[in-house]
């Protein structure tokens, strides 16, 4: 069997009492691509991830993961799925190697392949010389690398990364991006949730902008920018009165603006205002479409 779409969510809804965490979400992830779910905390990204592993059951909608229907066939899907959670759930009293070993059993790696799977995991996490170190002695970046490596011991076809670089230093984030890039180059399908614009821009083939449980736009990062924010943006700095003036002027000309505290970015034009020109980016698109800052 072969499915074009590794993930196919249609009209998915999840409510928790009065709160609707996911509100009619449609997500399609073609096999072999990397899709980024970009949205602030509370947008419904983690809830969506949990629905893909069957740990949260949707109230409405259709969910297909690797061709399997959720939640009924979630076990089959999970056998071919790798999940790196947002919060660290490593066994802290065990060593690096023991953590990988336990998961080779949980993910049913055949006995004769276990050693090789652990070796691959250690290589991926670059922790070969720390295989016998207890996890509670590792740094944050090392733990995150181990967390990712642990989810790959069984060579999954699809990998879910929930905020993979949150809370890490910039240089460690770069390392992790290289790791994720390597996965992409091997043709693994990836669904990654993040609230870092740069991460989405760098790693995702397609970005899905999420806000309040819905997808408000989706497309390749460059296409999204071109479509919604134009190629360049004028950033005008000034005091609150001046910024308000600029916003009014722009509105009169039919241009969208985006306020960032000390400046106003006028989108869709490269002159007519006294400001700095800079390339439009995904953050502009995000703010424009959702009306909220992502930080």
């Amino acid at each position: 069997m072969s499915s074009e779409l590794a993930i196919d969510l249609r009209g998915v809804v999840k409510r928790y009492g009065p709160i609707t965490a996911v509100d009619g979400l449609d997500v399609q992830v073609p096999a072999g691509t990397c899709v980024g779910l970009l949205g602030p905390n509370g947008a419904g990204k983690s809830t969506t991830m949990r629905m893909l592993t069957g740990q949260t059951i949707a109230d409405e909608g259709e969910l297909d993961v690797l061709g399997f229907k959720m939640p009924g066939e979630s076990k089959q899907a999970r056998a071919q799925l790798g999940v790196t959670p947002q919060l660290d759930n490593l066994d802290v009293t065990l060593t690096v190697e023991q953590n990988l070993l336990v998961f080779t059993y949980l993910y049913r790696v055949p006995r004769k392949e276990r050693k090789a799977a652990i070796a691959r995991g250690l290589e991926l996490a670059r922790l070969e010389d720390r295989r016998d170190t207890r996890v509670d002695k590792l740094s944050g970046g090392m733990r995150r690398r181990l967390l990712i490596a642990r989810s790959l011991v069984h060579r999954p076809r699809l990998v879910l990364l929930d905020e993979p670089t949150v809370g890490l230093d910039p240089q460690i984030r770069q390392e992790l991006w290289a790791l994720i890039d390597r996965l992409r180059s091997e043709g693994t399908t990836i669904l990654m949730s993040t609230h870092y614009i740069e991460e989405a821009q760098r790693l995702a083939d397609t970005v899905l902008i999420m806000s309040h449980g819905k997808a408000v736009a989706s497309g390749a990062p460059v296409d999204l920018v071109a479509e919604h924010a134009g190629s360049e943006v004028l950033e005008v700095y000034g005091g609150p009165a001046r910024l308000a003036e600029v916003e009014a002027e722009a509105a009169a000309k039919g241009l969208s603006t985006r306020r960032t505290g000390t400046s106003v970015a006028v989108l869709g034009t490269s002159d007519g205002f006294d400001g700095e020109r800079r390339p439009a980016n995904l953050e502009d698109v995000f703010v424009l479409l959702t009306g909220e800052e992502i930080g």
Partner: protein
Amino acid sequence: MVSDTRWSDTRSDARTQRLHRFERPAMAGVLVREIVNFSSYWRSATFSSTVEPTIYLLAFGFGFGSLVSRVGGYKYVEFVGTGTVATAVLFSSAFPAMFGTFVKYQFQRTYDAILAAPVDTEELVTAEALWIATRAGVYGCVPMIVAMFFGLPPRWEMFAVPLIAWLAGFGWGCFGITVAGFAKSIENFSYVVSAVLTPLFLVAGTFFPLNKLPKWAQVLGEINPLHHCVQLVRDSAFGVLGWVDLARVGALMLFGVLIWRLAIFAMQRKLID
């Protein structure tokens, strides 16, 4: 054979066999996790599971043993030695199940990691209960062995004791998991320990027989699985097994099955939303 260092397997025909409930590999995976973890704290677990009941045995056995020489037809040291097997079973099953489960859920988010793999909640609960039962089966025998050093005569029927301890340990382990499954915070456990476990372990025939207690206490004893465990262990140790013991085994099995399903229900409610 070319070494394959790819991290992903993008063949679309890979591994699409049907999966079902209670699969050996899933439960084995959970057991491996328990065993590997156990190797890092087995010393403290063994110490507390053996020293604590032994202290009860020695204190009551010799403390009371100096006041009463025979109870229930047996030397008091032997009476208590066989009774504290049930104490050891309870301490090595209900308590680790309650606290271990809660800590894994709340603080370590271990269950999230396991459930992201092809393991379902019922397999997870069952595997953990089987492991706890095995520990109870082993540690439960310690008081009896200690009693043998104080003169309890060995008998072939004593080989039934680890099995009885295992069966009771399975039930009490599931009980602990159930409590952890329903508990909102670790403070809730004090209620269970004080209001349920402590009375049950005292009204079980462990340190004194039930036949001189008021009627209501005797009735409580009859529905107390720990009491059946105590009686079974005593009857095995003293070689007086009878048909009523078969009924007691049945009672322990019924207890085990019912509380096992309840534990699964409690954990599913907690883990899947």
